């Protein structure tokens, strides 16, 4: 007989091994799926994982793109991980990301064509504020009325998408755009542009910020009392209250961190790779970041690695789409598998598979 036994405490070895195992299992099932679609499975996996990094013809384009994709994922995922650790489930980072971009972008567009050094920092501040403000809606509703933050934050994503559509064809539309939807392109507005810091590497301010935030949050969790309370709240809400943490304050802080970092990612994306606010400005980073947060075991440094891995599957997936004609849905299914396997493997770090009859001690 096969049974599951709860481990006395989480196994550290399994905690480290599960992401690796999950990736292996995803690759194996992915190969089956690609084979069923009539594609060469080895070639597909090679195109997704190996070509973007090492293919002599593709790597020079793909490597910088990986950093460009990873930076927002890492920023958002780290913000979300603080909440997830404390059992506060912000699912609406996508909306907070959009609101950050709108707030920061609107700031820049209001000042156009002024040329000043302080415009970019101001945009970043506005971006963060936009994300925080959007996250405060679920926070306040939870604190005041005990409303479920999962539902509220998720619903606000759709509100933010409507707002984005509205401003990109209305309020923030490019007046010189001869009627096309979308704002001015910030890449062409030097004081507001988030351009590559070193040409050809993909490294923009957002990449630096992602690394800095990862280190800061790592230190916060290790050294600061707030980080201690966040960790404690995730293990036991009553213990956290006993240690003096105010659960309402913690809810507000964790949602603000998630919203602020999502907003930050949004403004970096808008001022850099995206350039302009359009109806389809958002591409799902806010949702993918949830996967990244868990893939990185809610650990800031793990999230950096997970973000890079996820960006790799994005770029590799795109390459597989146009080189092997794989459908986009197959790539999404492939990424979905990664979360599925991660969560199911995660079980092994909390439970042990035992054979034989029950033993009670």
């Amino acid at each position: 007989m096969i049974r599951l036994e709860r481990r006395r405490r989480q196994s550290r070895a399994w905690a480290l091994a599960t992401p690796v195992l999950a990736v292996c299992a995803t690759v194996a099932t992915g190969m089956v799926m690609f084979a069923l679609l009539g594609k060469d499975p080895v070639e597909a996996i090679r195109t997704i994982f190996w070509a973007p990094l090492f293919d002599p013809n593709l790597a020079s384009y793909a490597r910088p793109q990986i950093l460009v994709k990873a930076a927002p994922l890492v920023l958002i995922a780290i913000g979300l991980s603080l909440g997830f650790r404390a059992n506060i489930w912000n699912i609406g980072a996508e909306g907070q990301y959009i609101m950050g971009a709108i707030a920061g972008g609107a700031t820049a567009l209001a000042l156009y064509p002024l040329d000043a050094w302080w415009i970019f920092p101001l945009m970043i501040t506005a971006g963060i504020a936009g994300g925080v403000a959007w996250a405060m809606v679920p926070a306040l509703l939870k604190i005041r009325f005990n409303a479920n933050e999962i539902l509220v934050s998720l619903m606000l994503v759709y509100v933010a998408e409507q707002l984005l559509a509205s401003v990109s064809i209305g309020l923030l539309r490019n007046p010189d755009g001869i009627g096309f939807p979308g704002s001015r392109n910030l890449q062409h507005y030097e004081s507001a542009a988030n351009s590559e810091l070193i040409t050809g590497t993909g490294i923009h301010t957002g990449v630096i910020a992602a690394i800095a935030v990862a280190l800061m949050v790592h230190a916060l969790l290790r050294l600061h009392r707030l980080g201690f309370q966040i960790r404690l709240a995730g293990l036991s809400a009553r213990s956290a209250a006993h240690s003096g943490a105010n659960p309402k304050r913690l809810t507000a802080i964790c949602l603000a961190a998630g919203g602020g970092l999502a907003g930050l990612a949004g403004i970096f994306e808008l001022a850099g790779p995206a350039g302009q606010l359009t109806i389809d400005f958002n591409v799902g980073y806010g949702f993918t970041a949830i996967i990244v947060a868990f893939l990185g075991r809610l650990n800031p440094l793990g999230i950096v690695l997970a973000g890079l891995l996820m960006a790799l599957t994005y770029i590799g997936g795109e390459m597989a789409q146009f080189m092997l004609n794989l459908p986009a849905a197959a790539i999404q299914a492939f990424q979905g598998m990664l979360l599925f396997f991660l969560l199911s493997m995660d079980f092994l770090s909390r439970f042990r598979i035992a054979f034989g009859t029950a033993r009670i001690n």
Partner: protein
Amino acid sequence: MTEFFEVGELSKAYPGVQANDRVSFSMDAGEIHALLGENGSGKSTLVKMIYGIVRPDSGRMTLLGQPHAPANPSVARSRGIAMVFQHFSLFNALTVAENIALGMHRPPRARRLDDQIRATGSNYGLPLNPNARVGDLSVGERQRVEIIRCLLQDPKLLIMDEPTSVLTPQETGILFATLRKLASEGTAILYISHKLEEIRDLCNNATILRAGRVVATCSPQEKSARELAEMMVGSSFSAPERPNSAFGEPLLEVRGISLRPGPTFGTPLKEVSFTVKRGEILGIAGIAGNGQDELVSTLSGEASVDSGDILVSGASLGRTSLESRRRLGLLVAPEERIGHAAAAEMNLVENAFLTGADRMELARFGIANWRKARKFAEAIIEKFDVRTTGAASYAGSLSGGNLQKFVIGREILQDPLVLVVNQPTWGVDAAAAAAIRQALLDLAASGSAVVAVSQDLDELIEISSSIAVLNNGSLSQPRPVANYTRDELGILMGGTHDIRLTAEESNDSA
């Protein structure tokens, strides 16, 4: 004549620990036999082998001259062994009869079962209404359901695991009468407890286990409670001493606090008032669920009162936060060790930081000083004799008694002005319990005020200067311990309610 039940050279090893090492004892029919030992001494393993939950590595058991080697509990039950567990396995939403039918191999028809329950109940002084919903019953009545469930199987050997830990003195009295009657009819009873006075009162023989071995077999009436305890622990320990001193000024004043029940707190507090002076230990007795958690939470600041006020050294607390109460010197050790007082998946350094951060200055500008926290944790471990592999151990890896010493020690070493402890020795072995009680007495003697909330009357009588009883959210007027009889305390704890019920039920069934 062959022995009624005999255990010979029974051994059982788990990875890293010899739970039972060649344990032997025997019982006659009609004997009430105590199994005595500290937590982790192997009592549970032994009983589980008898009941078929665990299989021994070696050794033998004989029941009525026949070899007894049950493969599982249902085999053990079919051979006439029944067990009442410390934690009940009852469904609150079902009636008494339904719960009993669930545990039976082939339950009789409902009408007949109801009659059997009434008959057995009145026969053994355990009146129960078969159609009452278990969720509405008191803890003592729930235990009756478990006992009647066992008695309906007509057991030859009945195992009782810590049956009185949840009972009032009156309920304990009723239980003992039942057990004596059963024994007089020839049922052998294996009685597990750590309450030495009870064992001396009830049991004919006692087998004392320590570290998996039988260290003594004796007649408990011929030994003092202290001798039994020393055999159990293997060393002599001093019973707490109560200093005789006058008390100082009031340190904690609680003035008419009330709390409406909410989602977190089920029992309302009704105008609770008391005062604790410097050097005094106030014991708050009561059966669990009568507002203990609510009272302790309002004192700690985790719940805010709807009306009334709490004063520490004359300063009103109002709605001040838990942290500022700590700074004022009001410290609280809650009942749940794991998941409230401490986090299982954090190590002892982090758990020391959990409540010690402010008063021990373990953080500056919010930055934790883990080195200082480690020193604090090590000081607790050393001063309170916490048995652990070190401060880096996870709290969840400590035994209940050791973790409780850590939790209480953590508060005491912060030099509290007022310390509130909830169930300070619940589920703790005798040696650790004695150490904790002594620590509380020492703390009071050094000039603090202590509030001890406990279900264990013996404990409160031992350490408290005065006792008040919490019943359904109301607190009785505190009185010096000497002014009470045990019966009075029991009645205040809710015994009155039970006795009335008992009388009604008896009339019904008569």
